[in-house]
């Protein structure tokens, strides 16, 4: 939490050009044929952290106890986060088709940027002071 009250879910934007894939020195990252999600091979991953730096949204993170990188694999096409959000009645998350569009990769953003934009959106220039 970077600013009180500005809580933002932070998800993989499913970039079509996959910067994480290219950054991996051990070819542990692959793209699923079925869902288009990013899959990490636990055995090959050395937890070097290159994918974290390459990701425009800083989405991947290292597993807290084991030595490999975690990236959203869309739960094999049935994302559980969407399910709980719907069950909770918030409907903030939904499954959207992914058309071929450069615009979607723009939504891969670091949490700091997201918070800043939300605060400006809510409070105008005063929002900058809150960070």
């Amino acid at each position, binding site marked *: 939490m970077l600013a009180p009250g500005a809580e933002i879910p932070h998800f993989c934007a499913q970039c079509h050009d996959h910067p994480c894939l290219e950054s991996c020195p051990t070819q542990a990252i692959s793209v699923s044929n079925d869902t288009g999600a990013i899959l990490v091979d636990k055995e090959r991953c050395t937890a070097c952290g290159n994918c974290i730096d390459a990701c425009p949204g800083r989405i991947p993170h290292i597993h807290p106890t084991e030595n490999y990188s975690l990236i959203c694999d869309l739960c094999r096409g049935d994302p559980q986060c969407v399910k709980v959000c719907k069950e909770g009645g918030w409907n903030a998350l939904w499954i959207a088709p992914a058309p071929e*569009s450069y615009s979607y990769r*723009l939504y891969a953003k670091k949490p700091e940027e997201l918070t800043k*934009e939300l605060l400006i959106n809510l409070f105008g220039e005063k929002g900058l002071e809150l960070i």
Partner: protein
Amino acid sequence: MRGYAGKFLEIDLSTQSSRETHFPDDILRTYLGGRGLGVKILWDRLGRRWSSIDPLGPDNLLLFLTGPLTGYFPGGRTCITGKSPQSNGAVGSTVAGEFGIELKCAGYDGIIFSGVSDRPVYVLVFDDQVIFKDAQHIWGMCGQETLRAITSESRKIVQGLKPSLGELIEPSTLYIGPAGERKIRIAAVMAKWSHAAGYGGYGAVMGSKNLKAVVAKGTGPLPDTANMPSALTLIERICKACYKNDKFRRWGTGYLGYEVGAQTSSEPVRNWQEEWHDERSFGVDRFEQRVWIKRYWGDFGCPTTCLKLASPKAGQYKGAITDNPDYEIQAYQGTNLGIFTPEGNVYLSSLVDDLGICGIQGGNVMGFAAELFQRGILTSEDIGFDLRWGDVDAFAALSKKIAYREGIGDILAEGTYRAAEKISEMKGVDVLKYAVQSKGIGIGAHGIRSKLDYPIDISYACSTQGGDHTSVALLPVDAGNSELTLALHDSGVYCWFNMFETPDPLLWELLQAVTGWDITREEWYNSSSRKIITIQRVLLLLGGPDVAWSPDVHDENPPRFYEPLPTGPKSGMKVDRDAFLKTKKEYYETLGWDEKGIPKPETLAKLGLGELAQAIKSLK
């Protein structure tokens, strides 16, 4: 005659009188309305002395027309036409909003203005009453102010005339800003705050007639259709198809400001010196999160709601408010001027809208001026300040200069082509090669060099509406984006965007259900649309009195398109001139025109346009 109100209003501004007029069924069946009918009326009334008519003089006509599908097909528009002060041909320029629907509800299919008023007026059409109102106190006002004043005044008048109405939705207004009043050739006819009929420059024609605004309010229902149950089902199916257009619904065309640059390399950057950029600062996510204040907003009956409201919430441009710039305005009031921030773009966009300048033509001519400054041809003494790429305040100052015809603005107000000729004369350097325009009309923000966008190499050179990106020449001629198809949308007068996901047969079925005429696709592409395009082509070539287009010289891409792209994944690509000439010949042949693009006598005979023969003789 179903789908039509059945009568047109003819207003003579010189005598402030009005009368009704009618057109026979066969003409309406062929030309439908809007652009098609407008072109036909212009040819019938002005065709024989076309080249001697000054577009900004008292003889020109100004037509506000609806079509049979206005109000039925989701997304109503109004078509504005006349002799264009930009191309000196006839351009069918459409603007979104409820004006067309209000007019049809008032019982008219269109208004034909002639003559010139001796003092500023505005005209209110309320059902069958036509009221001329003095506009002295509104003259000189900017857009938002004008709209506020006219809306409250005309609301009072309408309520006075029919008190039983009670509270009512405001009348629909088409108006001009200070730019139109000063007859600048890149002035637009505006609706609401920021809808504009820009191509053609009809704001200047309105200004030349001292007509500040036209207001319409109708209390009647829309005209009867031939088969209402079928029409209703079809409208529902079209709406459902439109809902599929995710990107447009979520972002409007605003997502293209980044995508057309990064993905297809066809966005004007710094007066088309480049067509590629990968500026994430100009991404639609920034617009969405930083400047949008309203998400889904559409005009009457529109399922796509591509309109968003935008207003910078922080920084020096805080408070500027406009519709979220659509792609064209993002490109022309943004990247084309080297501006890559949403706030700067929204500010400039709101400013040109308020002044009544066409965003596309204004951005085109300002980009042109900035390139001349970059090359040292125009200096800061000429302009009054430095005009560097990306300097929002400088471009804001320049757009004010243009709208009020001050200093260099007086020259730039004439549009890119005429300004280039004047500056060439003034400076003794040929600057026409930096003007990215076709036949006096600045080219829409879809480049042809990367070959990834929808226009092709002949699109602008052979279009009857010059650089208009909503009327591009394409092969095959019945393609979804080609000029013949767009003539249908502009003649039926509804929104092209709602056709993107709509299957083609639905449109023809709706046209038949509304009008009761069995108009088919074949009939349109083989006869009606060719008639419209052929008349437009002849009127364009007749031109005059200040410019005349020669097919050999002017059926040509701007020189910039023959230069290779300097940056991006498609760098090095350019238009191949030999291939261009070949496609051009093929296109003219398909339409039954000779190698110069002049319609052949046998084509005219086949289309039943024998009366054009005389005009064609004078072209040869």
